[in-house]
């Protein structure tokens, strides 16, 4: 089917909203509360458009695209409404891009750029209001635009049910449990809220000030922590060769952008100086570095000795969730077929 945007016809797949249809065709309509995972919310009102045959402005995120629909996204009326919405968001709170972690990947900034809003027109008083109580997540309420993506994600996507809205009107605020600091709330720090936040309101605490968004290279990989195999993007600062932060890959079938606290925040080990890089052999109570060949032959001879002396069942094997499924398979095969015992287990079972 086809939808006309600003007089030009575009092909549109079935089951898409007007906003999705526009995005599929590379057209930009500002929108802040919609996220493919949390669905249409119709709340921020930044995505209003005119649709032929429908009265007044319509939120493109909530209207299903229909064949033959004629949509206007650039009339003075539409742009005035979009501008006012984005201007009001910029005017409320403290959207200081200079040192904001989200600078360059902020959806509010993009909307302001698209609409040509250089500075907020209105003055709305606000007081510094942030929460740094959590180990990994930093919340700046002054950068919150009440889009509700974090709340929807917490309750409907990862179902941790920690976040909700408290109070109302201009005082509306995202709360953890009964407005506890995040660090003392029931939050498990999965970071889905960080993943979904369109502005710099909820961010990875430890990545603050580490690198600008355009300075990092996103390297996609599979999370090393367990067998689920979540796809993860490591944001690597090539200058220092350090991982600045990790995000979930949204279109990954396994995890759809969701991660657990380890996958999202526990990547320190990669650059740790404590990390083992060669096998170590203990001699007279002290470790010394060895080659893999030397280590393997030592393991092989020792295991052979024990097996001959005490029998195969005197040996047990314990494998790690950090290994791949294939590696775990091979390990149990090794224990059963080569060593000859069923004494094999895995840390994920504990």
């Amino acid at each position, binding site marked *: 089917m086809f939808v006309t945007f600003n007089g030009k016809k575009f092909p549109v797949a079935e089951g898409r909203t007007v906003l999705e249809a526009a995005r599929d065709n590379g057209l930009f309509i500002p929108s802040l509360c919609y996220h493919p995972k949390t669905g249409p919310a119709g709340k921020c*009102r930044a995505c209003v458009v005119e649709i032929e045959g429908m009265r007044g402005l319509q939120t493109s995120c909530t209207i299903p695209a229909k064949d033959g629909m004629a949509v206007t996204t650039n009339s003075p009326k539409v742009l005035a409404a979009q501008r006012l919405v984005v201007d009001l968001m910029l*005017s409320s709170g403290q959207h200081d891009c200079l040192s904001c972690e989200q600078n360059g990947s902020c959806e509010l900034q993009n909307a302001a750029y698209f609409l040509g809003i250089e500075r907020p027109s209105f003055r709305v008083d606000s007081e510094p209001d942030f929460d740094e109580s959590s180990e990994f997540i930093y919340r700046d309420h002054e950068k919150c635009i009440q889009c509700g993506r974090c709340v929807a994600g917490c309750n409907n996507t990862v179902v941790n049910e920690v976040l909700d809205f408290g109070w*109302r009107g*201009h005082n509306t605020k995202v709360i953890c449990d*009964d407005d506890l600091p995040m660090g003392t709330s029931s939050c498990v720090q999965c970071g889905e809220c960080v993943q979904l936040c369109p502005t710099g309101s909820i961010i990875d605490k430890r990545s603050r000030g580490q690198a600008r968004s355009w300075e990092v290279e996103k390297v996609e990989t599979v999370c090393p922590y367990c067998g689920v195999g979540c796809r993860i993007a490591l944001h690597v600062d090539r200058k220092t060769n350090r991982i600045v932060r990790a995000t979930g890959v949204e279109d990954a079938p396994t995890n759809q952008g969701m991660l657990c606290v380890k996958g999202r925040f526990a990547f320190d080990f990669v650059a740790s100086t404590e990390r083992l890089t060669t096998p170590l052999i203990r001699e007279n109570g002290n470790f010394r570095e060895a080659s893999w060949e030397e280590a393997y032959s030592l393991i092989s001879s020792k295991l052979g000795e024990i097996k001959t002396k005490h029998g195969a069942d005197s040996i047990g094997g314990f494998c790690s969730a950090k290994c791949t499924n294939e590696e775990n398979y091979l390990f149990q095969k090794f224990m059963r077929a080569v060593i000859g015992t069923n004494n094999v287990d895995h840390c994920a079972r504990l």
Partner: protein
Amino acid sequence: MLSDSLIKKLEDAAGKYPCRKSALLPALEMAQAANGNLLDRGDVAEVAQQLGTTTSQAWGVATYYTMFNTSPVGKWHLQVDTNVPGMLAGADAIVDRIRKRLGIEPGQTTPDGMFTLSIVEDLGSCGTCPVIQVNDTYYENMTPAKVDRLLESLKGGVMPPRRDAGAWGSECGILLKNRGNRKARSIKGYKAGGGYAALEKARGMNPGDIVEMVKQATVKGRGGAGFPAGMKWGFLPKDDPRPVYLICNADEGEPGTFKDRQIMEYDPHLLIEGIAIAARAIKAAKAFIYIRGEFGWIADILDKAVAEAGKAGLLRECGIVVHRGAGSYECGEETALIESLEGKRGVPRIKPPFPANVGLYGCPTIVNNVETLAVIPFIVQNGAEAFKAIGSPANFGPKLFGVSGHVNRPGVYEYPLGTPLMEIIEAAGGVKGNLKGVIVGGLSVPILTADEAKSLKMDFDSCAAAGTMLGSGGVMVINDSASIPKIALRAIRFYAHESCGQCTPCREGSAVIARLLGGLVRGTGTTKDIDTVLHMCDTIMGTTLCPTGDAFSMPIRAMVRKFRSEFEALVK
């Protein structure tokens, strides 16, 4: 810690609803009452667990509604309504008197913990304001001298009895026929006047025929939007396996509106009869009366009347639950009301789907205003033609007009639709002083100048032709002693306070307009500010998720455009 007896009460409340979470508002109210008028965090978490919701959702609800105190208040919580009708009747002088007498500012508590002074939004007492709500009790028609006596009494630990108040008049004798008849509050008295005969007749009718009759009568909804009730009923899906719910919207929060309480307080069985008939017509499984929480004593009256009707076997087909709100104007919007009835924050839903298809608990739901449902017995009893014989073309039936502000006898008057506004104002004792303007349909409609108001007929079409709306029929009369910029400022502060906070133009737009108008009234505003306000109103119109954006843009814009010189005079 919730006591065992409280948990039992909470369980009883939960048992009344098809879904336990619906009992969240009543449960929080119980927890607050049991804890000296303060909501304890631990109690909120326990209530959440008991009802199967999350702590954050319960706390979100507790902080959303104004009647929940999440920080301590004094033994006597003095809540003064300073909204526009109160303002016109001298509510600010009442606040001043309390401030002087107690030495506290609004929002403060006396050091001995006896009194807290709060400024609150419209309490639905526009014809009997100034009003002070002390804890749960209304004291109406207050004067500074009465304030002194009230405070003395409270200091002595005595809460004076609440007095029935308010003038009224009825040209039609349909909606207010029992207003002066105390006996009609009981089922016996109501029946003695011919009550429940219409329900009896309806029981002999096919539900479809009742719907048809109401369609024929063309009852335009009395809540404010004026959507024909019969047509609304006709939107229910046919042959749908889901239960149908009927909700009576008794949230009456539109400033200037105090009509539904006249029916509920003085003729509760009239409403119950209307609900029972409507429930039969739409084959409702259950009916709810969502009444604003501040009307606690009226909810008690309804509870008693529902119990009487139930005992008399009149509610066998469809039970009625009286559900108390907890302080939110927004819950008057039907989808926000449904959310609230589901035990959530009162935020509106996106339409479509409309409640007739996806409403309460995702089921087909009809939401009708009190006054709309209260005319149903007359229609069933006398036929659509008798109803259409009242009023003007295409605007049929009797209508309650609440007249407040600068008139000599503020009150509620029942007149046929199409009655000249001036005749209604005359019934209310005429204008005090020189007429400057009239807001004819509750605060959310555009103001009319004295000239525009002179020849206006009070029905839906005439008001629309005059560039305003009949709305809820809450008529606020303004004389030349009042400042329109101050009224505009008070109005926008109300909307900013009541904005649910969900969508940007309403949440932030109302706050910005309040700031700009505040500057103008303080004398620090500029001519550009006046134009900015107009631009914002023009742009916000039609941009918000629910009608609240229009509800403040329209009246503020009209006040600025029609009385611009008053705003300009404030620019220094």
